[in-house]
């Protein structure tokens, strides 16, 4: 999978590396700001109130 991505990205090693870093950063940002906030309410980690 990662080998395939590396081969598909155009350019020399430097350009490939820069592209990979931008892609990874973008994926991380999407997770951090959009996916994780949606996941968090479903993790029963820190329930603090009492009730039935």
């Amino acid at each position, binding site marked *: 999978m990662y080998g395939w991505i590396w081969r598909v990205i155009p350019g020399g090693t430097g350009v490939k590396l820069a592209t990979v870093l931008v892609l990874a950063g973008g994926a991380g940002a999407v997770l951090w700001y959009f996916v994780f906030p949606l996941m968090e309410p479903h993790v029963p980690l*820190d329930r603090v109130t009492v009730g039935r």
Partner: protein
Amino acid sequence: MRALLRTCGELSITVGVIMLLFCGYLLWGTSSYTEWYQRILKQQLHETTKLAKLDKLGKLDLGRAVGLIRIPRLGRSYEYAILEGVTSEDLRRGPGHYPGTARPGKIGNFVLSGHRTTYAAPFNRIDELRRGDDIIIDAPEARYTYRVSGKQVVLPTDVDVIAPVPNHPDARPTQAVITLTTCHPEYSARQRLVVYGVLSGKRDRSTG
């Protein structure tokens, strides 16, 4: 076959890295939201404090700061703005006051809930409170000091702890008390840690 195995391995590693990142988000990402919102709440509270000098304070509004909580035992900088409501959205912003329970300093039970491990974890260290410690509530009209009277670990279904007289749901309240609830043990939803306090002092803003 080899390519398939490699892809499986790569996917597993990716999932692992994402899970680690999610843990990081729970511990630090959630806190940055709370800290940002706390700044807004504290600003609002300072504005209402000024207003209170001119006009009598009305009913508590949902979603706005109702006071500041300070606990000297947990450090000089321990200060959180309390907001009205205990929905998960409210509690992301800071410790919340249970709607329908007593207002600060009034006869009955002033109940607050706060996160223990995520969202800046305002109640992370309330297990360190000992009998006699002060819990200071700055409301717009007065400063109320409660003295810690006890601690308890209960089940999440034990709603009697937030009764006007804690654990005596049918009794009529004669005292102003405070109850703090958070999760227990840390990182778990299994039980609740409850800290009780009794009002020990009041200073009006105009004189203090």
